[in-house]
C-alpha cells in the first residue's frame, strides 16, 4: 500500500528528472534519447529506468547513464539503486530483427534448393545404381531334404540387360551354383517382340541348372487375347460353375512356350515338374492363373494333385503375382513359395516400407499386401522378389535383385 503511494508520488518527479536531463545534456542528445526511456520507482531504494528506443541499450547506457543517474540522485536523492532495462519492442521490427528475418528467408530458400539438389542426386544415384543388381540371400529349412539345396529366382527382368547379352547376370548365376533356377514372370515386356531375348535367357540358364519359366502378366497379355480371370475365361470358353475344364486354357496354342522349351527351359502352366536334385526329389509347380478369381476355378485339381501326392518331395510353388497367398487361407501351399510382380513397391521409404504397387496403392504393406521380402504362407516361407527391372527412374532405395534361397535341414 505504502509502496503504491510512493510510486504515485515519484511519478510526479519523472517530468522533473527529464527537465533536469534536458538542461544538462546537449539539445541534440536530448532529442535523440528523451522519448526513449521511462522512470519507474519500485520502492524507496530502487529505481528502474525502462529503455524502449530502437538503438541498442548499450549505446543508451554509454551516452546517458551517468547523466541520468545524476539527475535521478538530484531529484529523488542519493543512495538509490538504479537499474536500466530494455523494454520489449512492440509494433515495427527493429533493424536487427529485420536482418534476422532476411537471413531466415535466405536460409529457407537455400534449404529448399539444397533439398531439391539432394533429391536430384538421390534419383540420379538410384538410377545409376540400379544399372547393377544386388544379390539377396534367404535361408529356409525343410525336413524333406538331406543336404542343402540352392534355388535362384529370376523375376521381372522386363527385358533388362546386365552386361552384354546379360552376361553379368548369367556369370553370377553360374558362380552361385544353383540347383534349380526359377523365372517368375515378366521376363520380357512383350512376347511378340522380345521372344528372342527370352529364348536366349532360357538357353543360358538351362545350361547352368534345371530351369523353369512361369508366365507373368506381360507374357499372358500377349499370349492370350483375354484376361486370365474367372469371368473372362468363363465367357471365352463358355463355361459356368458346373462344367469348367481346367485343361481348356492349356489347350490354347502357345508358340512362345514351344520356343522356350526348345531352348531347354521348362514352362510351367498350372502344372508341376518333378526333378531329382542330389539325392532328393523336388516338385516345382508353376501357377498360370494367378488371378485369385481364377486360381481355384481353373487350377484346383492340378494344384491339389501337386500338394497332396508325394508328400515326401520338396515342393516349390512359383507364381508371378502373390495375390493368391494374400487372398486365400490354405493349409499347404508348398515348402517354398516364390513370387514377383510388385517391383518391391518401386520406392522403399525408410521406416515406412514399400511406397506403391499398382494393385495396393500407396504403402500397400499397411493393408497386409505382400510386396517385398519374406512372408509367411501357411507356416512356410513366401519370397516376393523386387525383380530385376532396371529402366525405371522411379525405383529408389530398391536396387534390382537376384534372389538366392538356400534350403537346409533345420
Amino acid at each position, binding site marked *: 500500500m505504502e509502496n503504491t503511494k510512493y510510486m504515485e508520488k515519484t511519478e510526479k518527479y519523472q517530468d522533473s528528472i527529464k527537465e533536469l536531463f534536458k538542461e544538462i545534456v546537449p539539445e541534440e542528445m536530448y532529442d535523440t534519447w528523451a522519448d526513449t526511456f521511462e522512470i519507474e520507482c519500485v520502492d524507496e531504494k530502487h529505481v528502474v529506468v525502462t529503455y524502449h528506443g530502437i538503438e541498442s541499450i*548499450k549505446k543508451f547506457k554509454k551516452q546517458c547513464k551517468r547523466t541520468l543517474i545524476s539527475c535521478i540522485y538530484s531529484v529523488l536523492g542519493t543512495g538509490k539503486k538504479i537499474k536500466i532495462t530494455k523494454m520489449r519492442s512492440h509494433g515495427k521490427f527493429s533493424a536487427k530483427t529485420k536482418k*534476422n528475418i532476411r*537471413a*531466415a528467408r*535466405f*536460409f529457407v530458400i*537455400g*534449404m529448399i534448393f*539444397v533439398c531439391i539438389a*539432394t533429391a536430384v542426386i538421390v534419383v540420379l*544415384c538410384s538410377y*545409376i*545404381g540400379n*544399372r*547393377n543388381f*544386388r*544379390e*539377396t*540371400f534367404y*535361408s529356409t*529349412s525343410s*525336413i524333406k531334404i*538331406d543336404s*542343402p539345396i*540352392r534355388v535362384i529366382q529370376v523375376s521381372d527382368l522386363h527385358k533388362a540387360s546386365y552386361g552384354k547379352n546379360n552376361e553379368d547376370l548369367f556369370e*553370377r548365376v553360374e*558362380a*552361385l*551354383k544353383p540347383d534349380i533356377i526359377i523365372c517368375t514372370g515378366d521376363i520380357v515386356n512383350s512376347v511378340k517382340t522380345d521372344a528372342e531375348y527370352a529364348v536366349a535367357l532360357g538357353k543360358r540358364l538351362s545350361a547352368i541348372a534345371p530351369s523353369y519359366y512361369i508366365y507373368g502378366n506381360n507374357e499372358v497379355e500377349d499370349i492370350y487375347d483375354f484376361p486370365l480371370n474367372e469371368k473372362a475365361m468363363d465367357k471365352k470358353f463358355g463355361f459356368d460353375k458346373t462344367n469348367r475344364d481346367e485343361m481348356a486354357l492349356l489347350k490354347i496354342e502357345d508358340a512362345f512356350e514351344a520356343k522356350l522349351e526348345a531352348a531347354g527351359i521348362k514352362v510351367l502352366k498350372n502344372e508341376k515338374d518333378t526333378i531329382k536334385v542330389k*539325392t532328393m526329389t523336388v516338385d516345382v509347380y508353376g501357377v498360370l492363373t494367378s488371378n485369385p478369381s481364377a486360381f481355384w476355378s481353373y487350377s484346383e485339381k492340378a494344384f491339389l494333385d501337386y500338394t497332396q501326392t508325394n508328400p*515326401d518331395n520338396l515342393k516349390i510353388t512359383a507364381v508371378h503375382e502373390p495375390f493368391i497367398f494374400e487372398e486365400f487361407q490354405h493349409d499347404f501351399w508348398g515348402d517354398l513359395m516364390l513370387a514377383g510382380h510388385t517391383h518391391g513397391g518401386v520406392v522403399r521409404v*525408410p*521406416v515406412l516400407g514399400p511406397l506403391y504397387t499398382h494393385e495396393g496403392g500407396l504403402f500397400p504393406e499397411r493393408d497386409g499386401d505382400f510386396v517385398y521380402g519374406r512372408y509367411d504362407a501357411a507356416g512356410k516361407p513366401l519370397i516376393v522378389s523386387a525383380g530385376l527391372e532396371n529402366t525405371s527412374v522411379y525405383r529408389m532405395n530398391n536396387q534390382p535383385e537376384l534372389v538366392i534361397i*538356400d534350403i*537346409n*535341414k*533345420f
Partner: protein
Amino acid sequence: MFTDMLQNLITNTLPAMLTGILQKLLLLIFALLLLVAIVRIAMRINNVNRTERTQIFKTAEYLNAWILLVCFVTTILFGFLNHFEMKKSVHAIVSLNYSEASQALNSNGTRYNMAEIISDEVVEKAIEKGALEDVTVKQLKNCLVVYPCVQGGVGDESQYHISTEFAVEYHASKDTAHLDSENVIKLITSAYKEYYIEKYTDNFSIDAEKPEFENMEYMDIVSYFDKETMAILNYLYGMAGKNPSFVTESGSTFNSIAGKVHQFKETQLNQNLKSLILQNGIAREKNEYVDRLLYHNKNVDFDRQKNEVSYQLCNKAIDMYSEEMTRVVLVPTWDQAGKYYMGRTKVGVDELSVMATNFSNYVASNEKEIMDNKLIIDKISANKKNEETYASADSLVESIYSSIKAFEKEAINAGREYSRHKMNQCVAVSIYGVSLMSELKSIVLFAAFAYVTLVLRKISKCFPKKA
C-alpha cells in the same frame, strides 16, 4: 562408357573406398577449422577487455544464413557418406536352440566351440556359397569377430554361466570393402549353420549307390541286405533309446518302424530270399563260389582247431586245480535286482570255466559255419541252372532292395522329424544391419559439431588482431 564408369563409381568404388576417405576428410576439415578458430581466439583474446569480449560473444550472428546453409549441406553430405560407412559394419546373433547347448555341448554331445563360427572351413564355405570375388579366407576372417553375448565369471558358482548366444561382427576392411556387408554376414551365418548341421546333427544313411547285384553272388547279396537292414535297425534302436515314446506325424514310433524292419528281415530276407537261394542252390559263378566256401571252411577249421585246443586246455586246467585250493569264503553280495544274497569268493576254476564255455561256444559257432557252408556247397554243386529260378531270385533281390530303401527313407524321416522337434531350429540366426536411429545420431552429432565450428570461426574473426 561414361555411364558405366559412373555406375561403377556409385555402386562399387564410391561405397567401397571413397566414402571412408571423404567422411574422414570432411571431419578433418571441420576439426582443422575448429582448431584454427580456437587458436585464433586464444591468441587475440588479450586484445580486448572483458566487456568487449562479452560484447563479441553476445552480438555474434548465431543464426547466420551462410553458416546454417553450409552446415546443412555438409550434414547432408556427411549423412550420405556415413550411411555407406555404417553399412560396412553389421552383426548377427547366433543362438543355439537345442537342449544340449545349456551344457556347453554340441547337439551330438561333443564340446561346443564358439570359434568354429568363424573357422577357416566356415569362411571358405561362405566365400564359396556367395561366390565372393577378390577375397581370401584370411582377409575375410580378419574382418570377423565372435564373442558370447553374455559371459559369466569364475569367481564363485553363482557367476557360472554357459553361453548359448554369440554375436558375430563384421567390419569391412579395405580388402573386403567391395562386398555387401549384410550379404557377407548372412553367408557366414548360413555357412556356419550348414557346417553345424553337417558336423553335429543327426546323420544317417546307408549306401547311396545301388550295388551291381548282377555281379554279386546271391549269398553275398543276402549278406549285403543283412548288413543294410542291421544298419537301419541299429539306427532305429539308437533313436528309440533317446526317446522311445516319440511319435511321428504318420503315427509311427522308432520301435514300430524297427519292428517292421525286423519282421521284413526275418521273412523276406532270411526265409524267402535265403531259402530260395539255398533250396535251388543258385550261384552266379558256381565253381568260384564253391572254391571260396571251401577255402573259407579250411580257414574256419583252423580257427575251430585252435578253439577246441583252448577249450580242452581249460578243462584240463580245471581238472588239475587242487581241491584244497578251491576253498571259498562266503560274502554277502547283491543280485541284479539289488537284493542281497550270499555269494562266494571267486577262484581260478571260475575263470577257467568261463573261458572253457566261451571256447566251447566258439567251437560250436565255427562248426555251424562250416556246416552251413557245406550245405551251400552241396546245394550249389547239385544245382542245374534253371533260368526261371534265377529270374525270380533277381526279381526278389530288386524287390527287397526297394523295400530296404523305403525302410531307410522311413527311418530317416522319422529321425529327422525327431531331430527337428528336439533341435528347435538347431542354430537360429538374427541379422542386425544399421539402424536408422544410429545413423540419425551420427548426423545430429555432426551437425552440432559443424555448427559450433562455423560459429566459432565467425566469432574468432571478430577479435581484433591488435589491442
